């Protein structure tokens, strides 16, 4: 296809009905037909996913895409080694969407591209595997759900723990009543992040389409030290971006209550005072009917570790008090430690005795299998887009609370907005850069 300019992009994104009629239809997939995939975003996660799907016999990586051409080689080499066939290399993901022979878009971009990339892919008749956190903001997440439903697309979110067997056993255990009634769940995400450098703004490196990279978000002056994770323009923060895995597990274990009634939050930049927007310390309390969830997160605690690979893939448990990605489930009759990444779970009775242990394995492969199965069966995947929306939403609420002065926010599930703070409602949707927009009616 010829390269689209931004004006063309507007034409495809604004006015969904007209745009949809003009967009290429998804080809009809036979039961044994190879599923052809384009990968948008060639950072670590995008490259990892490209390699994993390239290794499958039932899928092919047809495109690799990143605005930064310096990222091409690493991903291309990994894919060529895995599937022995060369993918097309493109900077603009719209070339993937224009190819009628592509069935799937893997969206492993920074947060600010999750929404627009996914919605346009749905409009173009592609199924989508989008990385977590699902959305940059609350409104965009809702539009992603609407697009998936309207165009009948399979949209799987990269919250792979949903597909791990040990997680389901934990839920069964809780639902059996052995912990009694669950009234408190504590979710931890304790990490160690580096400070950003303080180098001055500089020229955009050759081979990097920075304008396209910014896309719908504000185009800040290019700075090689800036980490997009730390800027509200591009991210909902490194805490939300990672802790959403654990919170998604907490929701799963407590039967996926869709929305909190209210969120109290305190957050600050205590340690990483490097010019970032997003907090490095965040505690939030989510109020549900008869249930409280507490999220505790830091970016400066190196002694609290993520579960190492040696435990993820073996019959071992993490050292729970120093496990950075644990969930604690507190019932009236028992307590459960639960670990992400295949960390397993252990249950204690009212006397504090260990009464059940279940080792875990990561669910990455099962999550990809589930996605491919759903593409063929047209069933909803394990981490469907709406689940992704509801699992990241409380973090959006906590972030908004932070941005309006750590105010307790009462949430209206029907309108996905706040009952008690007009200032907070201004953060439900972001400003879109001129030339880039997501329409109200996707």
């Amino acid at each position: 296809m010829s390269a689209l300019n931004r004006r063309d992009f507007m034409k495809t994104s604004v006015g969904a009905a007209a745009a949809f009629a003009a967009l290429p239809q998804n080809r009809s997939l036979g039961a044994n037909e190879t599923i052809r995939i384009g990968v948008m975003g060639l950072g670590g996660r995008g490259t990892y996913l490209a390699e994993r799907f390239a290794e499958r016999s039932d899928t092919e990586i047809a495109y690799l895409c990143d605005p930064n051409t310096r990222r091409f080689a690493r991903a291309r080499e990994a894919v060529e080694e895995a599937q022995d066939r060369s993918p097309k290399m493109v900077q603009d993901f719209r070339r993937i969407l224009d190819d009628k022979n592509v069935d799937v878009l893997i969206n492993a971009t920074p947060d600010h591209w999750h929404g627009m990339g996914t919605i346009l892919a749905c409009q173009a008749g592609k199924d989508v595997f989008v990385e977590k956190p699902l959305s940059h903001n609350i409104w965009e997440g809702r539009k992603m759900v609407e697009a998936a439903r309207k165009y009948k697309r399979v949209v799987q979110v990269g919250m792979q723990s949903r597909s791990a067997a040990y997680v389901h056993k934990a839920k069964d255990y809780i639902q059996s009543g052995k912990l009694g009634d669950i009234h408190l769940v504590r979710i931890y995400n304790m990490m160690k992040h580096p400070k950003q450098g303080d180098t001055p703004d500089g020229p955009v490196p050759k081979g990097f389409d920075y304008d396209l990279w910014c896309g719908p978000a504000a185009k800040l002056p290019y700075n090689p030290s800036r980490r997009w994770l730390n800027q509200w323009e591009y991210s909902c923060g490194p805490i939300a971006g990672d802790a959403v895995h654990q919170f998604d597990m907490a929701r799963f274990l407590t039967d996926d209550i869709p929305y909190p009634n209210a969120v109290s939050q305190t957050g600050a930049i205590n340690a990483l005072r490097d010019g970032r927007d997003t907090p490095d310390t965040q505690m939030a309390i989510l109020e549900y009917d008869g249930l409280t969830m507490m999220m505790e997160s830091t970016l400066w605690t190196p002694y609290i570790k993520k579960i190492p690979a040696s435990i993820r893939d073996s019959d071992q448990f993490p050292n729970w008090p120093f496990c950075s990605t644990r969930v604690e489930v507190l019932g009236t009759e028992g307590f459960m430690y639960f670990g992400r990444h295949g960390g397993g779970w252990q249950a204690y009775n009212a006397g504090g005795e260990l009464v059940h242990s279940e080792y875990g394995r990561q669910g990455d492969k099962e999550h990809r299998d589930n996605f491919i199965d759903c593409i063929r069966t047209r069933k909803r995947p394990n981490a469907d887009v709406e689940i992704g929306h509801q699992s990241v939403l409380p973090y959006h609420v906590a972030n908004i609370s932070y941005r309006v002065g750590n105010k307790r926010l009462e949430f209206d599930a029907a309108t996905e907005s706040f009952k008690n703070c007009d200032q907070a409602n201004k953060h439900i949707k972001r400003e879109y850069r001129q030339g880039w927009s997501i329409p109200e009616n996707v």
Partner: protein
Amino acid sequence: MLRSMLACLSLVVVLSHCCRAAWLPIQNVKVRQDPTELGGPKIVIEYDLPDPSISEATPAHVFLRFSKDFGDHWQRVPTDRLRGNGFGLVEKPGHKEMTLWGSEQAGIADLGQVEIRVRALAMARIPAGDFAMKSLPGAGRDESESDKPASNLPLYYMARYETTVAMYTDYLNEVGGEGAGWNRRMSKPDRCGIVQHSDQTYSVVPGRENHPVTYVSWYDAMDFLNWCGLRLPTEAEWEKALRGGFYLDGDQTKKLPNPLPERPFPWGNDAPDADGVFRCNFDGEDDGFARSAPVGRFAEFASPYGICDLAGNVAEWTLDWYSTSYHVGLDGFRVARGGSWMAVPVACDAVTGATQLPLKETSIIGFRGVMAPQR
């Protein structure tokens, strides 16, 4: 068979290959044992290093390895037992002589059972001094170092060529008996070309000798370099080697200013494919190579110090850490620099780095060694 072949030799001379990019040629190696009055027997090793290009600026790194069990196990001769002009950095061609003291204590006094191998790599001298560090070490995420890029480095030496398939095969035949350092992908004839045989020996697919070795993990690279007495370069060392210091003769003398101290490419500012001239091996076949090229093939576009292929061909492992915010302390990512035969031309510059897990073995990453004399 190998053992019986070697048993009759008291010395194995490592001969040069046809291209200068492999070991440097070493000739007329002689070894003898002399008694001493009080210090026990000593071994005298002589050889000729004929390459006329060897100089103070482009010395040879000579290292010796020996086996005292007919070639089953090898170890590097410790330099603190050596005296003479033929080991370590050798800055003049010609006849060399070394004395190995304490040979009896090292168990290598009986020349009837001992094999000694002498090998030499082409190096380039990078004088101490300031340079323009344009990239951020560890892509700005290196927690082991200051955020501020290094701008001054002491004297060090860097291999003029990427480590070749032939050199690595030579190494495997000493240490790879159990398969250590080799993986099946290395046998791919179009991307590496090292074949493992049933007797645990290794050979090179003909024609691949002087291509850069690939499918080497960061650990493989470290092991090879430890084998020959070198180490991986830091990112700063790698970058200074590419564009040169502000003075190419170093800050002590400052007689030779670098005309382009901020150059993005080893040869200067021109893009790798500017004006239809192909200055390195990047993505595509227009430069003459669909995949890797023999090392040194673009020698006229070498760095100011005469170091070849820093741009393109294969990216090169460095010593530096990279940590992403999601993986700090867990995965220990490392940085490879320099672009590759699969990279777009702009990615073959002085600042582009790719992060990889150190266990990763790919067809686009190789390595070269450096040596920093102790001050």
